[in-house]
């Protein structure tokens, strides 16, 4: 049928859809396990794997020179995690203080975390080493469908002028989907304001470019409302405080937490997280042991409602406790220019002077109406997976289902449940699979854990040989020498 329609079809045993860091680490694993580039393709609408990540981190105030929130030994460019980023930066910059920090984290020091630039430069090095660009096919994936006889068809729209036809098709035994966040979701009251007033300048999301806010505040004193209690709120706050110091500004900051954490919280002395002044404190997105320890082992055994409950217990928005941020907030509180309040916002309206009025109702019944020049939404809500056409199609036609927290249901080895077809397997990794047997999916190390599970599953199916200690060591030396795999 496909041939009759005149659509060109290419056979490729393993196809990854996405082309971000999730696709990259999976291909990296498989290249290192021993799969040649001729057996794999990645379909993407971006040119290099860190492109979307870099866009989002830059918007949320982490340019290349700033540090991201990620562990030193979570290296998407190095599946062994050794040498860690801290060792590398200490060596390159001749800074033994990094080693002291990594030795004493998180007890005497904040967690050591890498610069965004360090991550991107190393990704580029590794991408070249594994011939990533030989496998990249530019295009927009429309759908992934099971084909009669096993395996899958992936329908792709190539960029205009890049191919003779409007569609091309890949026929594969294995397909891997790592398309990242289905989309950003705005807080409903802010979305309503933006739609009603057509104002995308004063009510902004921290993940979209919003440099105009900081530029305006340099020209005259203003007030900013921040919504959300995660790491992005922390980083945006730091930018506002830094600018205040650097340029002697008069910026006033009102910070609205929907859930205001006033101290250590949790049901039991064995499950209590630190917190205070509104924030819940945690080094990384998840408690550390989800990436290999106790929580990882526990979650792997849980099903249904028990699993959803465990996710809830360890979930909740949080941010790292960083000494610099604490100092700045303390100064802000005592200087009277940083005000943190608990409340839910009923609506946002434009005041008579054109500024923004938020109607905030707190749990104790008090209603506040702070007036501001800008509102920055730092909540980072994610859209439902069905907002993305590929997932929507898989849920409707592909046999895929939802897990206990509503996202894509995958096995322990990241096969999408219900989508097997003959000897073909469909895998998924990343944010869409949150709620599965492994919790830390939307993190560097989580993507690597998924990639390793997938590579080992492919080894069980005979696509590649499982990597043992000897090959692993030999391959590590190649990584060190930057030699081809």
């Amino acid at each position, binding site marked *: 049928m496909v041939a009759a329609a005149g659509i060109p079809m290419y056979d490729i045993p393993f196809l990854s859809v996405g082309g971000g860091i999730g696709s990259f680490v999976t291909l990296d694993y498989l290249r290192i396990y021993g799969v040649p580039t001729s057996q794999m393709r990645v379909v993407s609408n971006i040119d290099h794997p860190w492109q979307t990540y870099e866009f989002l981190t830059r918007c949320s105030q982490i340019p290349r020179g700033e540090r991201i929130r990620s562990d030193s030994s979570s290296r998407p460019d190095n599946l062994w995690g050794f040498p860690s980023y801290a060792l590398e930066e200490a060596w390159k910059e001749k800074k033994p203080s990094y080693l002291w920090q990594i030795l004493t984290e998180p007890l005497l020091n904040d967690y050591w975390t890498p610069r965004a630039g360090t991550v991107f430069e190393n990704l580029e090095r590794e991408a070249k080493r594994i011939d990533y660009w030989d496998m990249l096919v530019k295009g927009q994936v429309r759908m992934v469908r099971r084909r009669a006889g096993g395996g899958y068809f992936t329908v792709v729209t190539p960029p205009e002028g890049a191919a003779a036809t409007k569609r091309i098709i890949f026929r594969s035994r294995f397909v891997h989907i790592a398309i990242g966040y289905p989309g950003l979701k705005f807080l409903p009251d802010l979305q309503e304001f933006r739609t009603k007033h057509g104002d995308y300048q004063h009510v902004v999301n921290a993940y979209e470019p919003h440099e105009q806010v900081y530029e305006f505040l340099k020209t005259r004193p203003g007030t900013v409302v921040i919504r959300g209690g995660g790491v992005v709120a922390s980083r945006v706050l730091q930018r506002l405080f830094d600018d205040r110091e650097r340029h002697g500004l008069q910026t006033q900051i009102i910070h609205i937490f929907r859930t205001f954490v006033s101290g250590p919280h949790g049901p039991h002395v*064995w499950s*209590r997280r630190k917190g205070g002044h509104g924030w819940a404190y945690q080094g990384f997105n998840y*408690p*550390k042991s989800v*990436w*290999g320890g106790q929580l990882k082992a526990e979650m792997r055994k849980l099903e249904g409602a028990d699993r959803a409950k465990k996710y809830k217990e360890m979930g909740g928005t949080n941010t790292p406790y960083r000494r610099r941020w604490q100092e700045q907030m303390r100064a802000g509180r005592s200087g009277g220019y940083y005000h943190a309040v608990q409340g839910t916002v009923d609506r946002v309206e434009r005041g008579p002077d054109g500024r923004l009025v938020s109607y905030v109702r707190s749990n104790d019944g008090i209603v506040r109406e702070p007036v501001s020049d800008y509102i920055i939404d730092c909540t980072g809500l994610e859209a439902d997976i069905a907002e993305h056409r590929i997932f929507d199609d898989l849920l409707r036609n592909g046999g895929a289902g939802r897990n206990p927290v509503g996202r894509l249901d995958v096995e322990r080895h990241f096969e999408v449940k219900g989508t097997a077809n003959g000897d073909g397997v469909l895998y998924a990794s990343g944010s869409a699979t949150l709620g599965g047997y492994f919790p830390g999916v939307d993190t560097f190390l989580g993507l690597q*854990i998924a990639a390793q599970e997938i590579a080992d599953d492919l080894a069980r199916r005979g696509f590649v040989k499982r*990597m043992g200690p000897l090959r692993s060591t030999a391959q590590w030396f190649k990584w060190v020498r930057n030699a081809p795999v």
Partner: protein
Amino acid sequence: MVPTLLGRIQTRLFMLATLGVLVTLLIVPVLPGPSGSLADRYVNGLLVIAAVGVLGVVWELIYHFLMQFRWEKDWPTLFGLLTLVPEGLVLYFLLRSGVIDFIDPVPAAAFWTHFTVVWVCIWLVTNGPMRVPFIRWRFRGGRVL
């Protein structure tokens, strides 16, 4: 490190049986304050390593219990290094007091040099190089098997 209980115990025994034995074989001839033949000192050195392993199972139970008070259920790198102090002291006391009577009393300098060198070597390897041959080890809470 983010160990599970089984992972802790396995990693300890595995590292002592491999790197611990290797370091012992290298270091025993040069330990300060030697007494007895080299063969006897080797046997004694290896028995000390075995004792670190056996007692260590109890220690790991204690560490695992203490770790439950940590929200992250992690075991910071520094803990892994500093626990050499209580473990060394207890073992040294047991050896000197003759409770473990099949190991000859060891001169203080020899014991502490041997114990510390083995400990630091194992600590360094488990915090990085171990992941080079064993890529699944860190994701399994330190289980080797």
